[in-house]
């Protein structure tokens, strides 16, 4: 074998790179666990069924924004007949009062950084 040393070193680097996810959490000493969310107290349900909310709240927000800002259509009726104002800060954060312990925990977990907060201001208690 020519250059056995270099080739074996290359293979080891390749294997280490591919298996990064396997040793990463050990190396970082992190606990691998889904984020713990603080859910609103005294409220029964979200504006959509929870399962849908988990996967599609960003699409809902996008729709809300268009309806509210472009069409002035600011009130929605939920599937169980409640009336909710289409507002990021007033509705979403009105129920989910602590952004840090709700939105952010989830978003940090999957490393999404919505840029909405460049303009919109989260109610006090949930800076950043």
């Amino acid at each position, binding site marked *: *074998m*020519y*250059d*056995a040393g270099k*080739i074996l070193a*290359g*293979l080891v680097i*390749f*294997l280490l790179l*591919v298996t*990064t*996810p*396997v040793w*990463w*959490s050990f190396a*970082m000493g*992190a606990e*691998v666990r*889904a*984020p713990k969310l603080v859910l609103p107290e005294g409220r029964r349900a979200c504006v959509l069924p929870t*399962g849908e909310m*988990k*996967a*599609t709240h*960003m*699409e809902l*927000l*996008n729709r809300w924004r268009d309806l509210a800002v472009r069409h002035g259509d600011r009130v929605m009726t939920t599937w169980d007949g409640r009336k909710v104002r289409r507002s990021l800060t007033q509705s979403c954060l009105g129920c989910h009062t602590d952004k840090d312990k709700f939105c952010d925990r*989830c978003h*940090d*977990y*999957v*490393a*999404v*950084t*919505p*840029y909405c907060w460049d303009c919109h201001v989260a109610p006090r208690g949930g800076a950043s």
Partner: protein
Amino acid sequence: MRAFQALVIVAVLSGAATLAAGVTAMRPVLGIVLPYLALAVFLAGMVARVVWWARSPVPFKITTVCGQQRSLPFLRRQPLESPFTGWQVVGRMALEILLFRSLFRNTRTELTPRKNLAYQPDKLLWAGALAFHWSFLVIILRHLRLFLEPVPRMVGILESVDGFFQLAVPTFLLTDAVIVAALLYLLARRLFNARVRYVSLAADYLALFLLLGIAGTGIAMRYFWKVDLVSVKELALGLVTLRPVLPEGVGAIFFVHLFLVSVLFAYFPFSKLVHMGGVFLSPTRNMANDNRARRHVNPWNHPVPVHTYEEWEEEFHDKLVACGLPLDKE
């Protein structure tokens, strides 16, 4: 026709995965068993390939050079085009691997309307290949957010650069458009250029269709049929921490994506895609052009019993002296 065969293969695979994803009993297979199998085949296959290449004899130093080699001091030399030392080889390889230097020299041969043979530079293939490979790399690095906990800062930065335009929600990512455009160009090149079509095999199309399928399902999952990413990350982390779990309520499209990725990984070491490892072991690139300074021994050389002039002189020393013949030794 060969393109059609490949398309049918990918369509059947996607269809089968779609059907299987609808059956609860099949989900552990799609979500856990096949990914593990595919990864095992990928790793073992890549290592076996590289070791096999490394063991093959290299009879000659066959560096292909494109510049002035090291020579007389007043001749300007080109260390990256004709490397002499190990570090120069590293530089040359880096250019090759990161920027596809040799593809940059690609030319097209064409008959002009007047039936003259004309060669002209053809940078389009280089640009398309570079666009595809770099967006592929960026996408894989961005996917690390699903596999690493805590997510390294670099991944977030990469994503914010990729989502620079801040269009739409979820943010439109540049690499998603680039990879599809590049793949479609590479496909069109095979389909519409008669000479390239002539040398294209079903396997050439298969790689392209498979990658298009993976990118397509990924993009569909991000922008149209949302899945719950928190559950996906739970599944992905379960796989890599060797404690597999199968969360409820992940959309079927995720399993199609994952299945196509598994197929790609398992197929990788047996296909031309293995050039990912092969490029490092190409003797025309990874050898220094130092033939004049260092002897390269051909391992195939049969051991020949030689009798050198020195030995001969030694043997007949006394007789040569007696005849008064001149000796090299003295």
